[in-house]
């Protein structure tokens, strides 16, 4: 670690703990607390990566958590940012964007072809000949990839969590710390978040040698660390701003979702590079990066430095570098001497030459910096001087880290004094302070932090006090208005992420992309991993100058969340996979149920050997038809409807008349929306004049409840609802022997005379309070039994035990589907789609247009004689290869799609495959053959038949048959 300095007063490294790691196969030492970039620089490794497009050698640029030059991968991870990730003992790191290693990269010559790859190259090339595009695509993808994903990596589950506070302060620099402290002193609960490992911000690198800063530093920091109302979160990026102060904090443990009453943004500034020939050469870096190297990691950035400045921060940096023993070869100031006369005098005293109104024309060197060529700013290429050096530091300007302000809806304007964007109009509850607000002097930053806290507290209290948000702004420029130098050989990079050069942007503007948003999209400036943090300001300046307009007219682009890259596993969080189980779930497991998801519910699809699915299902169907079956229907929606207007509510929400249902009877209930489309069905049972009980489909139960609730509120009805869906277990006992089994177990008479088809009764089943309904979805004599959830398992066990003598068998959802299909009963959402009306579904009998009003009535009245489709039954040949036809297969006629299979399956009762098709009405005709195209593309012939397929007169559910069965 030959570039490691002696101990620095505020360093972040722990010299007691040495670490070993490797980079590109070579082993290095580091101290605990080093990031990868700092550790490599300490070991005199200058080339840390290669650029995205031209594979140019790259070194440190900003060391500010968005340095795209150093993107790495390890054996276990990719997209590692070298300036963020702490060195881990024993880890091996590799640069990502290389083919064959960093030094021997096979694409390192690409830059020589840059003249052939101008802006818009990808849009303009490769389109023809068309057949070659896949080849180009493969080559480009291989060349352009950043890192490789190892899909064998162990999954990492990162929870997300919620937090709440009064105020979020973003950035723990001097103004942020002051703002947090003042807000807390006014009783606010404050979260102070900073992306760095330690608080302090610029106070601890930019002001590290300042005597005033030395006095305030420790007390300022300690007061926020000690304050009971302040939570300090370091290594935490405030990722973005969402509506109503909803803010993700991305930290080492994952993402916290924070809700606050107000936000103070003290996020500081992003130092901007100068644009000149070879400005990306390793050894060329921002002054603030060098200051961080020294102050945080005790690393000497280089031995011989030239410094390009345009502000006093640059001069202060020169003194910092001088102090740690760097030979300052020259200071090149873009501004006139009088702009920084005191600093110039100070440097001259130390024998350092200052070239005022000069610029750096080019950096020289192969893989790292050897020298720079400087010249007068207004005479490019004339009177140039070459200065040997291994370090070129740039301090030419700033751009506000204002992403949160933009996302919150704030407007920023260009301050021509500061040569910087500053906040203009900010939404209520959003405040800015410190350097992001254009405040540069340390004492003023503290005052500005205090002002923001007071303003914030007043807002939270509801005061409308007025504050001058620009009161502490500086009156001197801290940024050059044009830190850009043209060069005949180009390679003067504006965007380091995307290898965009000055000419690229000039050409884009000339091609007509004369709006900053268009320029961004065409050139991709600001669209790389650092999202324009180093590039956007210069791009705006270039476009403004090209168009001859000022910066405000040119505008700026939108900074979208997240501010820094975030791990996908952090974004994903811990999955909440909601699942509901019925009271009989353990019994289903006992009977070897194979489960399927039905919305959030887990339901048995069938019981028994998974490998013999079809056989099991057919046996279940047969059991119901010939003996006795039991199915868990707990997932059905179950809603109690009570009150004097209950019947009126149901009459208006369902297509059939509900006001004339007799006591103790049920009626089929079909619900449509305003456009007449079927959305739900079930039954409605009348318990008393003011009390009804309804069922809804599994998937629509909650929606039906909400729709009823809304109707009650809208129409001012005197009705109460209770959604009992989860509180009630339910089974359907179906089959010829169902009455024989049930009769001795209940305390009521369930004969046909006492309990007719479609009846509803309250009863006790061996002491279990139950509601019984004689309904027949599956087309056999059957009883639906609803009981409290905690009695459901007992009921199931009772029926299974007592039903043994009748050969009772549990049946699952698939057998139920086959059974109801034989009866021609629809399943809403399967046999209907988002456009199906009752007329199309063959259910005109369920629409009572004589009612003066129900939801959808008006539409249905119009559509009654205007349907284009109809649901028809079909069957395949008995000997046919039947199972090829699946749901959603299409009916093709003369090459046109004319219908869609909605349900299909083997019917044990019909001894063949049957199903339903939503068919163009013109083709609907009993006996007419149809052609169904299967997955393989083969056409299968089907015959249209009338429905129901089974027991068309419904005798199986009627009294006479009951008696016969008995």
């Amino acid at each position: 670690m030959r570039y490691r300095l002696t101990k620095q007063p505020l360093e972040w490294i722990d010299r007691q703990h040495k670490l070993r790691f490797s980079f590109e196969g070579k082993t290095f030492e580091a101290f605990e607390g080093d990031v990868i970039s700092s550790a490599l620089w300490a070991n005199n490794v200058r080339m840390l990566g290669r650029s995205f497009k031209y594979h140019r050698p790259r070194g440190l640029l900003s060391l500010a958590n968005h340095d795209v030059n150093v993107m790495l991968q390890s054996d276990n991870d990719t997209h590692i940012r070298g300036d963020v990730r702490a060195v881990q003992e024993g880890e091996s790191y590799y640069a990502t964007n290389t083919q064959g290693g960093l030094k021997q990269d096979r694409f390192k010559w690409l830059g020589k072809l840059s003249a052939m790859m101008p802006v818009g190259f990808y849009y303009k090339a490769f389109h023809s000949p068309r057949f070659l595009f896949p080849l180009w695509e493969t080559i480009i993808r291989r060349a352009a990839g950043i890192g490789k994903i190892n899909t064998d990596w162990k999954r990492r589950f990162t929870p997300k969590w919620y937090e709440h506070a009064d105020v979020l302060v973003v950035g723990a620099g001097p103004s942020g710390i002051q703002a947090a402290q003042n807000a807390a002193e006014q009783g606010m609960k404050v979260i102070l978040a900073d992306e760095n490992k330690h608080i302090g911000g610029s106070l601890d690198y930019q002001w590290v040698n300042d005597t005033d800063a030395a006095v305030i530093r420790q007390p300022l920091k300690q007061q926020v660390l000690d304050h009971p109302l302040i939570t300090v979160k370091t290594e935490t990026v405030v990722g973005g701003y969402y509506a109503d102060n909803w803010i993700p904090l991305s930290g080492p443990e994952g993402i916290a979702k924070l809700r606050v009453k107000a936000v103070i943004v003290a996020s500081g500034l992003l130092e901007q590079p100068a644009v000149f020939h070879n400005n990306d050469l390793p050894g060329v870096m921002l002054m603030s990066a060098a200051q961080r190297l020294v102050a945080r990691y005790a690393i000497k950035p280089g031995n011989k430095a030239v410094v390009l400045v345009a502000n006093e921060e640059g001069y202060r940096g020169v003194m910092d570098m001088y102090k740690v023993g760097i030979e300052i070869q020259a200071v090149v100031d873009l501004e006139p001497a009088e702009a920084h006369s005191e600093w110039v005098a100070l440097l001259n005293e130390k024998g350092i030459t200052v070239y005022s109104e000069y610029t750096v024309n080019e950096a020289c060197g192969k893989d790292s910096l050897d020298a720079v060529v400087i010249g007068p700013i207004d005479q490019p290429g004339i009177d140039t001087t070459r200065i040997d050096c291994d370090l070129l530091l740039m301090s030419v300007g700033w751009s506000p880290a204002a992403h949160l302000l933009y996302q919150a809806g704030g407007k920023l304007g260009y301050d021509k004094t500061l040569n910087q964007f500053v906040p203009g109009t900010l939404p209520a509850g959003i405040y800015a302070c410190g350097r992001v607000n254009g405040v540069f002097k340390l004492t003023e930053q503290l005052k500005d932090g205090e002002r923001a806290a007071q303003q914030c507290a007043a807002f939270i209290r509801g005061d409308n006090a007025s504050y001058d948000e620009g009161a502490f702004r500086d009156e001197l420029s801290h940024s050059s208005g044009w830190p850009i130098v043209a060069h005949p050989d180009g390679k003067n990079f504006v965007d380091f992420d995307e290898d965009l050069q000055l000419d690229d942007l000039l050409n884009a503007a000339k091609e007509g992309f004369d709006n900053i948003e268009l320029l961004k999209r065409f050139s991709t400036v600001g669209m790389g991993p650092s999202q324009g943090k180093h590039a956007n300001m210069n791009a705006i300046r270039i476009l403004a100058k090209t168009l001859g307009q000022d910066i405000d007219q040119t505008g700026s682009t939108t900074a979208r969340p997240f501010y820094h890259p975030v791990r996908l596993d952090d974004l994903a969080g811990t999955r909440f996979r909601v699942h509901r189980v019925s009271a009989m779930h353990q019994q289903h497991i006992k009977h070897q149920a194979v489960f399927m998801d039905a919305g959030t519910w887990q339901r048995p699809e069938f019981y028994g050997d998974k490998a013999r699915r079809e056989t099991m299902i057919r046996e279940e169907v047969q059991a119901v038809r010939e003996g006795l079956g039991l199915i868990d229907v707990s997932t059905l929606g179950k809603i109690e409807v009570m009150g004097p207007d209950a019947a009126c509510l149901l009459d208006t929400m369902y297509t059939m008349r509900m006001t004339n249902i007799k006591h103790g009877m049920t009626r089929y209930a079909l619900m449509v929306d305003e456009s007449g489309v079927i959305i739900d069905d079930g039954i409605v049972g009348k318990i008393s004049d003011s009390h009804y009980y309804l069922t809804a489909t599994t998937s629509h139960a909650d929606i039906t409840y909400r729709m009823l609730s809304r109707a009650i509120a809208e129409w001012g009805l005197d009705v109460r609802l209770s959604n009992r869906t989860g509180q009630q277990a339910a089974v359907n006992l179906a089959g010829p022997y169902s009455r024989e089994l049930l009769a001795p177990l209940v305390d009521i008479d369930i004969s046909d005379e006492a309990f007719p088809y479609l009846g509803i009764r309250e009863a006790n089943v061996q002491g279990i309070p139950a509601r019984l309904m004689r309904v027949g979805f599956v087309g056999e004599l059957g009883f639906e039994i609803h009981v409290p959830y905690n009695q459901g398992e007992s009921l199931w066990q009772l029926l299974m035990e007592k039903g043994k003598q009748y050969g009772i068998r549990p049946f699952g959802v698939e057998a139920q589907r086959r059974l109801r299909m034989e009866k021609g009963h629809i399943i809403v959402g399967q046999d209907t789609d988002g456009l199906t009306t009752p007329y199309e579904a063959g259910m005109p009998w369920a629409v009572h247009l004589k009612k003066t009003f129900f939801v959808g009535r008006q539409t249905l009245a119009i559509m009654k004689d205007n349907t284009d489709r109809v649901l028809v039954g079909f069957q395949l040949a008995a000997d046919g290869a039947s199972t090829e036809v699946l749901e959603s297969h299409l009916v093709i006629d003369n090459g046109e799609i004319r219908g869609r299979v909605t349900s299909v399956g083997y019917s044990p009762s019909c001894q063949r495959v049957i199903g339903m098709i939503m068919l163009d009405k013109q083709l609907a005709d009993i006996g007419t053959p149809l052609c169904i195209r299967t997955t393989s593309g083969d056409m299968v012939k089907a015959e249209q038949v009338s429905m129901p397929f089974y027991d068309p007169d419904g005798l199986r559910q009627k009294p006479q048959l009951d008696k016969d069965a008995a």
Partner: protein
Amino acid sequence: MIPVALQVEQLPLTLLVGCDVPEVLQANGYDLPELMQVARLPDGFLVRTGKDEFLLQSSKPLVANLPSCWTYPRVDQAFVLQGEHWREVMAYICHMDMGQVKTDDWLMMSVAGVNAWARVLEEGLLLGCDPSLGEYLHHTLNETVNRVNEKFIK
């Protein structure tokens, strides 16, 4: 002492709905709580969840003989979170600010993606949900409690 403990409870409840419910409850000797507030009872609690909707946990038989009063038994799955860090557990699964609630507050909220109610206890939270969601919520709470306990025991 572990930072958070989770207990599972079967909580027999009665839902009372209808405009006559307040009168019925008063006739049975109950003081009516304010909306979304809990009244403590010797063997349970009474909470007002709507203008004329209440949830009662009590073993005392209820005489409800007025027409507009419907009562339904509820068998909600209930959980008790207790310990110093119960709020931390809730922060992982619920967006509500548990730092703002006080004892005997009644909350209706989304917990880990499902509807739930909660009663704030003196040192914890009584949480209830539909019984069909009980297994899921138990599993989720258990995982979260373990995560929090690991964090604080470390």
